């Protein structure tokens, strides 16, 4: 059974049919919030570099642990997504790309760019 009128995304999981456009829009906010939390990691690292000694050694060990690497990986995915989709949002804010076709084309481009950038980044880390 499906309602025939437009619905707020807050009606998901039962009524709302997801489109790529709304999913990407929600993901933009989620990655923004994730990066806000992730900024703690960044500040911690800067402070550890400045403090040096034991704190830096412990921080370095944590970042290289499986949990640390997972956090860094998620940070990089969130970063690349928010960056690429942010550029898409800036284009809209400047008045470009409002047609449905452009919205979808931009969305697929963002997904492809995030995949490529994430794979290249981590391939570089493990090979170099």
């Amino acid at each position: 059974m499906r309602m025939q009128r437009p619905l707020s995304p807050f009606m998901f999981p039962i009524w709302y049919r997801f489109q790529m456009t709304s999913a990407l829009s929600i993901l933009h906010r989620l990655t923004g919030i994730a990066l806000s939390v992730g900024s703690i990691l960044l500040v911690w690292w800067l402070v550890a570099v400045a403090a040096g000694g034991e704190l830096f050694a412990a921080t370095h060990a944590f970042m290289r642990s499986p949990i640390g690497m997972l956090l860094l990986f998620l940070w990089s995915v969130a970063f690349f997504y928010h960056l690429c989709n942010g550029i898409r949002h800036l284009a809209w804010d400047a008045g470009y790309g409002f047609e449905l076709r452009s919205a979808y084309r931009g969305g697929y481009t963002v997904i492809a760019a995030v995949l490529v950038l994430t794979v290249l980044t981590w391939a570089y880390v493990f090979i170099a």
Partner: protein
Amino acid sequence: MSDTRSSYISTALRDGSVLRRVRHLGSARGGLREWRLQRLTALALIPLALYFVASMLRLATSGRITAAQWLASPISALLVILFVLAGFAHMLAGLRSVFLDYVHTRARLLLAHLFVRAATAILAGASLLAVLKLFLDH
């Protein structure tokens, strides 16, 4: 009005006259200022964040260059400071817009704003001190 529209699309991001037209309007009065700040910091963060992440990659894979050496150079110290300032300003604007959408009582909204402002001030302050210490020590 419609004639100029067809040849020139003005938006609040590109055209200052749009800002003049809507200033003091709407429920938030000065709301467009924060909207613009969010977009302008977003523009600044494209090169700054890319520079920061590329530098992290270089540090993670080089083995020879240390983070302390990297931040001792005036250019990288300046760029990291700009990245931190633009990043936290952008974060603050973004989180505030999320709160405005999802926090529905005045008291909780105020608490959320205060908490995020305090946390941002501490995080940004700590980052700036760390970068300045590394820069000035060398």
